[in-house]
């Protein structure tokens, strides 16, 4: 696979690993947060932690839009879709996320018309092909995904399609980072920045992290070499006492982002005054809603939303894990009351949530694989 396999080349990965070990000063402990759930997933999938020295610690950030979605929003979305002739369309990621009375797949088992879509455009297509039904697209994602939803809504409006709406849960990453950085128990030294969000918003929105909070940010791609190179770049800055925003993912991310995508979002969305993030609480200006010019396609403006609020059990320590203060296995519920199959808190709910990733991919001690190399 072009633009993929080259960035998985084993010899180069080994070299990058060596460079990291060379740079990691023996008397120092580096705490680096990878913001994006996609990075969390990649780190586990490629076993990158095995290549890092003990004193370079990766902490998983809040960039998992499924994890931070409050359960009440799922309940709201499902209760809207419980009407006659309704189709509930969502990405596969949402299908097993539990609401108070079950997940979308469980609702499907009980008779609701629930469809998995790969693209918001597919949801629009469903609406075109099913004129007698109403298709509600349950939208999630950060700024990576929001422009696609926005463009889809623009197309729906241009077509005058009446049987389509979006229940919008798009969130914005930088306010969550501010919440983490401003927290009194902040322990982080630097950030691996969200590469795909940055294809849209560019690198400029992270400047304040470097300038005000004095922490370096390296915007990173998602292949093993990308992530390792980003860690090299962070270690170099940290060792030199620098704090800058750097772009490691140049082949795809432009410093100014994608203006057309930003325009699309601007046309359709405005910021909510605040939005609840599961595990982090209410964060101002951190999520999108549809403008009144798109009221007809906004499930929240068109239908009556119950506005359910569901609080997580006090025992769940998601907030502390999200801020990197606790490791997943240190949460008192991890692996016992809270597992991927019966998730209690946010981070167990999606496969890229740090607790789920740790549970699925990494909770057993890694073995020595020297004889694996020999046996090949």
């Amino acid at each position: 696979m072009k633009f993929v396999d080259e960035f998985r080349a084993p010899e180069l990965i080994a070299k990058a690993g060596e460079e990291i070990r060379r740079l990691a000063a023996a008397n120092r402990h580096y705490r680096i947060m990878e913001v994006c759930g996609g990075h969390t997933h990649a780190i586990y999938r490629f076993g990158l932690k095995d290549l890092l020295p003990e004193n370079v610690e990766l902490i998983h950030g809040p960039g998992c839009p499924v994890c931070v979605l409050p359960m009440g929003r799922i309940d709201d979305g499902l209760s809207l879709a419980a009407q006659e002739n309704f189709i509930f369309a969502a990405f596969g990621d949402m299908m097993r996320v539990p609401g108070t009375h079950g997940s979308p797949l469980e609702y499907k088992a009980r008779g609701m018309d629930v469809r998995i879509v790969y693209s918001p455009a597919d949801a629009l297509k469903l609406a075109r092909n099913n004129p007698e039904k109403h298709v509600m697209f349950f939208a999630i994602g950060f700024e990576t995904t929001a422009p696609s939803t926005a463009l889809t809504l623009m197309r729906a409006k241009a077509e005058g399609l009446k049987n389509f709406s979006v229940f919008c849960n798009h969130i914005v990453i930088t306010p969550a980072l501010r919440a983490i950085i401003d927290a009194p128990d902040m322990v982080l030294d630097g950030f691996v920045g969200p590469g795909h969000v940055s294809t849209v918003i560019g690198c400029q929105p992270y400047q304040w992290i470097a300038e005000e909070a004095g922490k370096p940010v390296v915007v990173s791609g998602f292949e093993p070499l990308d992530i390792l190179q980003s860690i090299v770049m962070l270690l170099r800055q940290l060792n030199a006492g620098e704090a800058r925003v750097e772009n490691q993912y140049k082949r795809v991310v432009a410093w100014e982002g994608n203006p057309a995508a930003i325009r699309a979002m601007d046309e359709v969305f405005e910021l909510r005054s605040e939005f609840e993030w599961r595990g982090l609480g209410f964060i101002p200006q951190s999520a999108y809603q549809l403008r009144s010019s798109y009221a007809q396609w906004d499930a929240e403006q068109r239908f009556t939303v119950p506005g359910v609020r569901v609080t997580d059990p006090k025992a769940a320590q998601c907030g502390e894990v999200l801020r990197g203060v606790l490791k997943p296995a240190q949460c008192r519920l991890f692996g016992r009351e809270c597992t991927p199959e019966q998730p209690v808190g946010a981070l167990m709910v999606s496969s890229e949530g740090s607790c789920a990733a740790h549970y699925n991919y990494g909770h057993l001690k890694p073995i020595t694989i020297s004889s694996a190399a020999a046996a090949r």
Partner: protein
Amino acid sequence: MHDENNMATAARKIKFRETQIEMAHGAGGKASRRLVEGLFAPLLYGASQGPLADAAHIQINGTRVAVTTDSFVVKPLRFPGGSIGELAINGTVNDLAVSGAKAEAIVVTFILEAGLPTDILEAEVRAMGQAAERAGVVIAGGDTKVVEHGHADGMYITTAGIGRPLPGVEISPRSVRVGDKVLLSGPIGDHGITILLARGDLDLEAELQSDTRSVLPLVQALVRDAGAGVRWMRDPTRGGVATSLNELARDCGLGIVLFEEKIPIRDGVRGACELLGLDPLHIANEGQFLAIVGAEHAEAALSALHNTPGGEAAVVIGEVREQPESAVLVATLYGGTRMVDMLVGDPLPRIC
């Protein structure tokens, strides 16, 4: 009398607590296992413990006979590379083959949806006849039921197969040893991805087809040349290689390490999995099998497969270790490792 009472009491301890059946319970992963071990086993299998396998070898008047049953529920009924009828025959033959038996006869039940066009049924029955002939198995009988329109997705097929154990091989997870090799007959993911694409919801196209076929000739060659070293076999259908190997790991208590770069995957499967965020190790296969073979027999085993039509792509993809206990690990060439578990339900595409 006393024994029967005890067995009856033990048999009634249902550990399955879920209040309704979900799709996940049929997907072959953790939820399926919970249902089988928590509801079926206590009520049906009584005191006979032991790993639940695809096929059972039973004794009838001193003769060992292999018996299996399977059911086929697939949408769409026809897909590139095959159809439900072929799956039914090949799947049954394969279940018996990987238990170390040659299928002799299959009986078939059709559950047909009222309104199903006859020519569709005819095409399936033809396909089954042809598949049976290719597999060298007799279709000995069957049953038919028709259900109301709106049920059965066109048709469901169930089979029961009976076969003769192959000489020279004894399948048991308990015989698996540290150092044994994990053999895979060929590329994974073809069937599951073909079905996913054939459903049309994801708007993806690829030149892929289901790998449905009888693996009996390959198993026979393997047993002939390396039978003494074959500890265990499985056809990784729903749930994929990950599920089959996790079941083995749990049954034998040892660890299985897979070498990522050795696992054969076709381009189209890889592309679809990367695009949709799926792991090929979790995708269903209908024409491949896994075998655990003693290290000293591995070369003979591979040679036997390579020299049999259809076995050219067979490869060692891993080995059995002491650690991690009861789990499966994937190792990359550059020294990274990750756990691979069985899924709860069917693999779902993701965007995150």
